[in-house]
């Protein structure tokens, strides 16, 4: 049984598309990436999964519990880190976390709460209203993991965290994942997905355009090609070239296609220099996004 199973989930805001016919399956113990540009439907998918939005069609399960008919059981398994932090300003972090723990039926959260606060260097007794955005984010991270959930749903989790805290956050995620926690990681920071996830789904215009292993995504036949040719030499781009830029004798383009065909094409050019770079996830994402 998958940790998260989404079948045909559809949500429209009136006539405006939110998500449409989204299918996803996240295995237990997996770190699964969810990539898409702003407005693609990432947050709508997560908010529907968590029961904040009522779907127009389709269904979703978390740890085998249907989110529509058994939402309380489903959410009991989840730790959720939202992208936008809004907490009760009159509370301190300690009060908020105790309140959070009480809603999950955790009777004695103090020890773990203090451990996590020390790890993230958060002063638990300051009013939330007085905290910087980064510190509010730390409080949000602690509430997401305090009750030791089986599934973590993270929506743009590192925004506002400094590099040191991001590093600690990723270390903590790796430790939790090693103990069996499933992580659903939504982000547009592709290097984070690349670092953390074993698989990722790409969402565009409310629809899933691809679900791939990260290794497969990285191995897609896209390359960045940079050439320097003899002065006056004209080039005719190979099939599969895109985003061509030329400046005097220097040319650059992205190439999607067979490597041997590219090498054959290069062999026929009047080259002074050539550089082929490995694709980064950003390029791969843009490749999917532009399809």
């Amino acid at each position: 049984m998958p940790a998260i199973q989404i079948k045909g989930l559809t949500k429209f805001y009136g006539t405006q598309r939110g998500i449409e016919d989204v299918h996803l399956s996240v295995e237990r113990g997996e770190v699964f990436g969810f990539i898409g540009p702003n407005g693609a439907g990432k947050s709508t998918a997560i908010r529907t999964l968590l029961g904040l939005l009522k779907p127009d069609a389709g269904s979703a399960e978390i740890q085998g519990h249907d989110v529509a008919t058994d939402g309380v059981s489903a959410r009991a398994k989840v730790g959720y880190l939202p992208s936008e932090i809004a907490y009760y300003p009159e509370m301190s972090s300690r009060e908020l976390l105790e309140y959070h723990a009480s809603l999950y039926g955790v009777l004695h959260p103090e020890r773990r709460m203090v451990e996590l606060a020390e790890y993230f260097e958060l002063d638990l007794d300051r009013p939330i209203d007085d905290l910087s955005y980064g510190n509010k984010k730390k409080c949000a991270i602690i509430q997401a993991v305090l009750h030791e959930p089986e599934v973590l749903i993270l929506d743009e989790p590192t925004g506002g965290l400094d590099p040191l805290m991001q590093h600690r956050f990723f270390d903590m995620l790796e430790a939790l994942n090693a103990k069996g926690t499933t992580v659903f990681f939504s982000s547009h920071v592709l290097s984070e997905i690349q670092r953390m996830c074993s698989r990722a789904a790409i969402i565009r215009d409310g629809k899933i355009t691809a679900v791939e292993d990260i290794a497969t995504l990285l191995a897609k036949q896209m390359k960045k090609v940079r050439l320097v040719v003899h002065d006056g030499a004209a080039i005719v781009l190979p099939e599969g070239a895109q985003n061509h830029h030329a400046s005097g004798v220097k040319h650059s383009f992205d190439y999607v296609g067979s490597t041997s065909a590219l090498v054959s094409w290069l062999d026929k050019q009047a080259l002074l220099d050539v550089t082929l770079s490995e694709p980064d996830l950003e390029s791969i994402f843009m490749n999917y996004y532009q399809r």
Partner: protein
Amino acid sequence: MNKALYLKELKRNRKNALIWGSIVLGFTLMILSIYPSFAEMGEQMALLMSKMPQEMARAFGIDDETWSSIIGFYATYYGIYITLLMGIFTSSTGATILGKEERDGTAEFLLTRPISRASIVDSKYAALLTLLLLIYVIQTLCAVGGILAFGTAVDWDVFTAMHVHGIVLVGFFTAISVLLASFVSPKVNFMGPVVGLIFGSYFLDAISKATDAVKFLGYISPYHYLQLQAQGGVLEVNWAASFGLLVIAVVALWVARARYLQRDITG
């Protein structure tokens, strides 16, 4: 119902409750404490008031009873000020009790916890009812104490009827405010419509008493059915109207609850 959420809701509203409660209690004590001075000037006051346009006197329930007994005096102010103040507090609290989390952005925190929406609504309704009963009971006890301290020969039947009608009216307006708020965006400040609803209802009844020409206006005001002042020294609990308004209040709360269970939470 969720106990942690219920307690949180009470704590969240304690400052407002303290402020409004203090105003209501202060007003109650002030009214009762000035009664002896007015009673001493009973004849002069009656003479003064006889110069007042009779329509206005009828509208606001000012008659001989107002100056001749502490209950009559208290009743005049109970209707105009105390039920209005209590109603504005509980109705404005009720109007925002479900939408406030969305307006403040905390709905996402609350609704992603393992609590059903029904439990959230029930906990918030329970907190609202507690606040309503708290302010009502304390005001009533304060009024009893003040009347015993400053008055003599008190007709407790009139007092009881007045206070039963008072809490039903306050409960009714609170429920209607919860219902109306469920039809508008949580970002809308609902204080104005709440005040308008309660004052409007009160003045419709007052105007309808002033002259027979506009008597029909009173029929659309709940104050018409649950009078707060004795007529000829008599006021009895109108059980049928009280029951009817409570039924409407329960239906209003149920409809607002059903709407909340089905809505998309965007804040």
